[in-house]
């Protein structure tokens, strides 16, 4: 029972172009979503988050879009840089009750120079 799904295990993008990473969830009660980036042999690092009351949150080159009716969120990176090459995890959770987040399986992004 995978409540958070990242259906693309990998993605390759040319430097300077847009990277779009997708994430789907099944639990309509989720009201908070996060993206994490993970380099090899390191723990994940927080990238950007969005509350369900918004449909877009932007931070520099990173923008997260949330489509609640489709239970879908995406992370856009513009322009993509070689240093963005990493595994990206989306996570979803509830802001009531416990704070545990459900993570997707990750998408490996490779930005080609």
């Amino acid at each position, binding site marked *: 029972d995978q409540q*958070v799904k*990242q259906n693309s295990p990998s993605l390759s993008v040319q430097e300077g172009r847009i990277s779009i990473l997708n994430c789907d969830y099944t639990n309509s009660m989720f009201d*908070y979503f*996060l993206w*994490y980036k993970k380099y090899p*042999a*390191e*723990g*994940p*690092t*927080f990238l950007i*988050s969005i*509350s369900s009351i918004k449909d877009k949150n932007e931070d520099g080159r990173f923008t997260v879009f949330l489509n609640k009716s489709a239970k879908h969120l995406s992370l856009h990176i513009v322009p993509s840089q070689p240093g963005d090459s990493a595994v990206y*995890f989306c*996570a979803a959770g509830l*802001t*009531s009750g*416990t*704070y*545990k*987040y*459900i*993570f*997707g*399986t*990750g998408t490996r992004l490779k930005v080609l120079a």
Partner: protein
Amino acid sequence: GAGVSQSPSNKVTEKGKDVELRCDPISGHTALYWYRQSLGQGLEFLIYFQGNSAPDKSGLPSDRFSAERTGGSVSTLTIQRTQQEDSAVYLCASSLGVRTGETFFGQGTRLTVV
């Protein structure tokens, strides 16, 4: 250090032995989580501690797994009678515990059961 610290970074153990994994969260963080990542899988929630409240153990895969958090700080994850399927990277994370607080992860402990 300023970040979440985990030890050991790597652990190889024989099937059937017990292991202890340690996590030092960021000072002042009241929430502490354990996750694990098996090969090709996402991050699987194991257990969550928040202050003095009873921990959320709903993610522990079997009764061979247990965790403690002493004094609201350091946490130890114990796996008894390890099995090969326990091989994974075990990640600890901490946060301020506010509902939308950013969660900081340690570098993980890679456990290999042979």
